[in-house]
């Protein structure tokens, strides 16, 4: 029996759970000897002209070696994403644009000396009006980049899609709703951290990142170095959730500082810095317009998006394109249009967060479908049944322009409904309403499809090396260009290699996140690692087996084509005569080679599109507005599953974060642009205590896009659960006349919605 598809426990865990992990702050390396500690001085004002920075007093503090201000940093600013003119300096130079923006940096001998000195740096700012919220940005009254002439970063799509006669406006039933897909913070438990050292002419950087190669390339660009002269190492990384895909200015400026003082420099931020200066996610305002017939047929849909990119356009400026590509969701709607505008505001920059652009698309259309169902008086599950794209095994292109690989949305929906006992839940809801129960029951349904590795076809590199050693006589080292940071990818890759080589999975060691060890990787994000990285490693494993098989054939004096590898024992033998064979160790020894090695790059022909359906059950205390999630049923189809345990782990985490968006989490700025959610006391990260035991329903519809048949599972839970829970809350209140409550559905919001509807 193959190891694939079995619940192999994570090979990573014993080390991580017993405190054996090495995070960037833990790195002890001769090259970092004598490192100084960087403490950033940050703007306390959201928007203003930077008149001057007085560092004299700070310089005299104990342990201070240097204090640097923005004007001294002679690196070219980082061009804005999508709109290059909105460039970001490493440290603010003549203007500050958000609270938390680095203005100066203090270098001290010991880490604890930094904050004392940083406190004494005097930042002289002439305040300018803050720009908070997308409406203020669109008004273009105060500009963040006067030289650009507008706060608009980019605009795309059909501005009049909602009103066009062939759009939803022309339908028998038209429903509109404005809703906020609120800003979220990724909250990795390991905050950002980097260390930089010049080793002769070579730059070595350790960085808590999801993408060592991306940081490598950013450094090459920033410093104009030969790519071979830069090495980036991502040691153990304690979570990223999308926010650590790109390098932050703080990471990128460390080598410059190290060069200036002639010593290595390291940096670990505080939680508050993490909450205010690491990129945020989501932050879109939607206006949905959905049109159709009274019989429940959806005919047209328009999604209008305004993306708050924060102060400097980063990945956030790009998110709406993903949202627009996925606007049609799981539905067979002929007319789907969308429009997006991206604006800058005087707030923390926005980038990807678990799902990045796709959860927003799903949240929008899934709420829209529920609103439409309410309008035509049909059950929301029934409306979905009538409008889902039927099962397809050949690519399906939507009206929004995306080409889905494979899918069976109706089956996912039916499985989720059946597992939830949907009819019985509706009956219980009716009984409670009848009885006037103050604890209202809400049932929310969502279906989703998302694009992973996309929007373009991805590629990844991997290598496999078999060499003498270890208990099995040989050991296998695997290199991947993916950069796992908690997902358990090493376990999955070891299983794939074990399956193909017949060697035990625990004889496999996986290296990743080091640009010297794996050339040309792309990192871990977008649910890409197993499907691309795994396919690459699989390819390399197959090639190594082929090399060994040819050697074994010579040694067995047989024709190469007659020799087979017994995957159960890891022995090569002539087909039909298993008694005479050669183990891997014997093959290597007889051939006199130190190792067998193959490298393989896998390039997909298109992205993959995992999908599923979720059902959430909530109870709402109608007197207080308190919402409790009672059940969450999730049918997630990510194609073939290599390891159900790992897949469930990804789903659990994803579901938790999706629920958090619906009910708990939200980054808040006041009208002056001050962050109000800068600590874990104020930002309501969800915990296990608020969550029910998840009810997972399995489904596997393989994809043809890669040899594993696997799609990505990292983001599914987040994408499907947010609208399911959100819909459940709105559903619970429907009989009271409430139509919509924005996320997060906090007790006060729910209470107000009920009060406003019933008075």
């Amino acid at each position: 029996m193959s190891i694939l598809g079995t619940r192999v426990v994570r090979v990573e865990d014993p080390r991580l759970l017993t405190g054996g992990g090495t995070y960037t702050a833990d790195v002890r390396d001769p090259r970092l000897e004598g490192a100084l500690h960087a403490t950033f001085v940050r703007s306390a004002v959201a928007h203003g002209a930077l008149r001057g920075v007085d560092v004299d007093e700070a310089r005299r503090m104990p342990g201070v070696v240097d204090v640097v201000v923005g004007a001294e940093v002679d690196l070219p600013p980082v061009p804005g994403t999508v709109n290059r003119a909105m460039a970001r300096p490493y440290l603010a130079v003549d203007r500050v644009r958000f609270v938390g923006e680095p203005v100066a940096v203090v270098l001290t001998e010991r880490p604890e000396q930094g904050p004392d000195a940083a406190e004494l740096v005097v930042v002289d700012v002439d305040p300018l009006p803050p720009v908070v919220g997308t409406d203020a940005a669109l008004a273009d009254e105060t500009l963040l980049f006067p030289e650009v002439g507008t706060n608009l970063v980019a605009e795309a799509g059909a501005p009049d899609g909602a009103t066009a006669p062939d759009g939803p406006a022309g339908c028998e039933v038209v429903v509109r709703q404005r809703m906020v897909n609120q800003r979220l913070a990724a909250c990795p438990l390991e905050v950002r951290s980097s260390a930089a050292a010049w080793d002769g002419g070579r730059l070595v950087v350790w960085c808590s990142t999801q993408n060592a190669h991306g940081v490598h390339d950013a450094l090459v660009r920033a410093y104009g170095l030969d790519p071979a002269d830069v090495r980036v190492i991502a040691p153990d990384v304690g979570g990223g959730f999308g926010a650590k895909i790109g390098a932050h200015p703080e990471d990128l400026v460390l080598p410059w500082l190290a060069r200036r003082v002639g010593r290595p420099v390291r940096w670990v931020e505080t939680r508050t810095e993490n909450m205010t200066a690491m990129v945020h996610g989501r932050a879109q305002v939607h206006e949905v317009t959905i049109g159709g017939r009274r019989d429940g047929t959806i005919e047209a849909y328009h999604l209008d998006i305004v993306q708050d990119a924060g102060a400097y356009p980063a990945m956030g400026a790009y998110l709406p394109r993903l949202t627009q590509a996925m606007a049609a969701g799981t539905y067979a709607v002929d007319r789907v249009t969308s429009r997006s505008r991206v604006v800058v505001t005087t707030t923390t920059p926005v980038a990807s967060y678990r799902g990045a652009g796709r959860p927003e698309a799903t949240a929008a259309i899934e709420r829209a479908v529920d609103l439409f169902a309410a309008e035509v008086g049909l059950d929301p599950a029934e409306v979905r049944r009538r409008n889902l794209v039927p099962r397809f095994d050949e690519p399906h292109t939507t009206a929004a322009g995306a080409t889905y690989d494979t899918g069976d949305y109706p089956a996912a929906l039916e499985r989720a409904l059946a597992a939830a006992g949907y009819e019985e839940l509706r009956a219980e809801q009716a009984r409670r309403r009848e009885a006037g129960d103050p604890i209202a029951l809400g049932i929310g349904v969502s279906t989703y499809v998302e694009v992973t590795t996309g929007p373009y076809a991805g590629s990844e590199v991997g290598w496999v090396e078999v060499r003498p050693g270890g208990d099995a006589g040989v050991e296998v080292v695997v290199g991947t260009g993916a950069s796992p940071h908690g997902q358990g990818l090493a376990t999955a890759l070891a299983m794939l290699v074990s399956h193909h080589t017949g060697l035990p999975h625990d004889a496999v060691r996986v290296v990743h996140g080091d640009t010297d060890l794996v050339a040309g990787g792309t990192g871990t994000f977008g649910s890409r690692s197993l499907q691309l990285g795994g396919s690459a490693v699989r390819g390399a494993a197959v090639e190594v087996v082929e090399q060994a098989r040819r050697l074994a054939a010579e040694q067995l004096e047989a024709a190469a084509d007659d020799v087979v590898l017994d995957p159960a024992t890891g022995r090569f033998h002539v087909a039909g005569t298993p008694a005479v064979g050669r183990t891997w160790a014997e093959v290597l020894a007889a051939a006199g080679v130190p190792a067998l090695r193959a490298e393989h790059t896998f390039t997909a022909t298109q992205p993959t599109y995992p999908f599923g359906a979720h059902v959430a059950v909530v109870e709402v205390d109608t007197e207080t507005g308190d919402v409790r999630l009672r059940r969450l049923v999730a049918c997630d189809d990510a194609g073939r599953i290599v390891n159900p345990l790992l897949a469930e782990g990804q789903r659990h985490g994803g579901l938790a974060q999706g629920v958090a968006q619906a009910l708990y989490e939200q980054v808040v700025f006041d009208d002056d642009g001050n962050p109000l959610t800068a600590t874990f006391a104020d930002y309501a990260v969800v915990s296990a205590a608020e969550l029910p035991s998840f009810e997972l329903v399995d489904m596997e519809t393989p994809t043809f896009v890669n040899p594993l048949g696997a799609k990505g599972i990292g983001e599914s839970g987040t994408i499907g659960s947010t609208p399911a829970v959100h819909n459940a809350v709105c559903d619970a209140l429907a009989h009271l006349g409430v139509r919509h409550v924005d996320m997060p559905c906090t007790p006060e919001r729910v209470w107000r919605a009920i009060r406003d509807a019933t008075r």
Partner: protein
Amino acid sequence: MIPAPFDYQRASSVDEAIELLRQHGEDAKLLAGGHSLLPLMKLRLAQPSVLVDIGRIADLSYVSETPADGRVLRIGALTRHHDLATSELVREQVPLLAHVASRIGDPQVRHRGTIGGSVVHGDPASDLPAALLALRATLVVRGPAGERSIPADEFFTGFLETAIAPDEVLTEIRVPAVPGVGWAFEKFNRRAQDWAIVGVAAVMTDGAGGPGVGLVNMGPQPMRAAGVEEALRAGASLGEAAARADEGTDPPTDLNGSAEYRRHLARVLVRRALETASG
């Protein structure tokens, strides 16, 4: 998240702590469980130059009955929330207090935080002060001039301000025993480990003051629901009494709720607490 520099002194007795406070004056702060003080120091909202650690004074951690009169429970100021929550004596004699302690923060907080620290910190969002008000507890403090007792009603004087002097140490909390008396604690929060958005502690004592009702997070300081208590003493129905829950309060508006919402919550939660306590 690194505090400003400070000196650290460890006191091995209450007298030594008082002496250290006298020596260092206004710049010194007592350190008990550290779960209110240290977060403020890490955010540099508090910058004492000397910390006097009383956390290891073993004989300030106890729960006992007054020898002469079993009607009063004496609780040492350094008793940790967890010990309060799990003490058989407290659970029998003042079950409200044990339950409230069990609902504070998370296990780590409950194993470090002390009742004395919670009381002296005087945070209106804290749970124990509201319970101690409802229970009509007395706080015993000791300073250079000796010992004095302060009724809970006179102890909480303003936002994070209490009647204790900077050179005094809270040593004991005396709580009238109320075995068998109906009680309830309604803590309304979003997540299990959160502070209360609004909390209500109620105990249906008869006798002198009548039922006691304390409110969490309904004003600048821990307070009692005076209007509710008055209504109950006057024989009003539970519903009528609860309708006066926000009387005399001045609730904050913050991320978790507006003042208006808190007033509403107070009325609902007081009604529920009274119903449970008299059920």
